[in-house]
């Protein structure tokens, strides 16, 4: 038997599911399913929340620093503004990508975009979270007011900056090693498994599957 001999079986596939009801006007007018987009809704909401939080941080940063001429407070306020801008831009980028998903695009293209979105859902969390190793310092300075000779002594500031920088260095080292590992390496799989959720691993796996499909 040849592969061509299965063409008849494919032609009969629809007969086997004749019980599928209502592929008629009633089906598409109900519009209650839409699971394809519903599965992306958590990603959409998380990034909408990120944009909202970015706006709050931008407002908090702006409320305090212009009224006080202290250079340290100015730097702290600016740091918050820059971080807020990055948060908003990254969040909007994902939201726009989800809204722009067009299911009539070629299968490989759209499946790659979907898997990429699911992966970015996890990665954005790391990118947005990492600066907080340091960012809580300017936030505390902005919210509570800068008093480097009192509550926020130089010793306190230096200690926390050093701890924060060490944390960032450690996080960056980790990601550098994660990203330079080949997609199908066992080491990379173990690293990802230790830090990420099932959805991230599934998205990574599917991206690798798509890459193989395009390459072979």
């Amino acid at each position, binding site marked *: 038997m040849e592969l061509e001999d299965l063409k*008849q079986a494919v032609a009969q*596939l629809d007969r086997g599911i004749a019980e599928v009801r*209502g592929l008629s006007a009633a089906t598409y007018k109900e519009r209650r399913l839409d699971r394809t987009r519903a599965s992306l809704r958590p990603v959409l909401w998380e990034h909408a929340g990120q944009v909202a939080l970015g706006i709050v941080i931008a407002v908090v940063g702006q409320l305090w620093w212009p009224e006080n001429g202290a250079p340290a407070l100015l730097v702290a306020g600016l740091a918050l503004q820059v971080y807020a801008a990055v948060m908003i831009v990254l969040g909007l980028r994902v939201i726009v990508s989800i809204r722009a998903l067009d*299911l*009539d695009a*070629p299968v*490989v293209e759209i*499946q790659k975009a979907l898997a990429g979105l699911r992966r970015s859902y996890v990665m954005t969390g790391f990118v947005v979270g990492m600066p907080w190793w340091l960012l809580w310092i300017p936030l505390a300075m902005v919210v509570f007011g800068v008093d480097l000779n009192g509550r926020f002594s130089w010793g306190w500031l230096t200690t926390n900056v050093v701890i924060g920088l060490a944390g960032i260095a450690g996080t960056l080292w980790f990601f550098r090693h994660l990203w330079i590992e080949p997609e199908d390496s066992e080491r990379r799989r173990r690293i990802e498994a230790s830090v990420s959720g099932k959805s991230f691993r599934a998205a990574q796996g599917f991206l690798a599957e798509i890459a193989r499909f395009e390459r072979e």
Partner: protein
Amino acid sequence: MTATTLAGGDAETRFAELLERHRGIVFKVAATYCRNPADREDVAQEIVTQLWRAFPKFEPARSFSTWMYRIALNVAISFVRTNSVRVRHTVALDESHDVEGSNGGTTEDDERTKLLYELIDGLDALNRALLLLYLDERSYRDIAAILGITETNVATKISRLKQRFAREIGAQ
């Protein structure tokens, strides 16, 4: 499908006509990715929902079946990926129902259907799409356009599928 054909009647009527004419694509894609009848029904309805949502952007100059295949495959693959655990658990329970005489055909038909499902089960989501398109007698050009790969790549992959099938048949 031409612009003239689409010009008459309202969008809903046109959509219903086109859906009726090409509904086999919806069923075939659903059957390729889901063995459980409830999942197949969900996927088929989800495909139709997404087709209807996308219909206002459909350009009549394009092939309706190619456009339909793209959406149907994207929906089915996304469904299987988001529901993979549930789908895996239910496949075994419904497998026999699909194969044994469900087509109302001959024993030879049933044997072909069984072989088809065995082949499908051994393939990943994208190769399943390729197999379905090939067996549904789409041209290499159409397959390349639907999947978003080159015609050369399509030819190579189909050649490999044939070899794989021959090996598996030989091993049985």
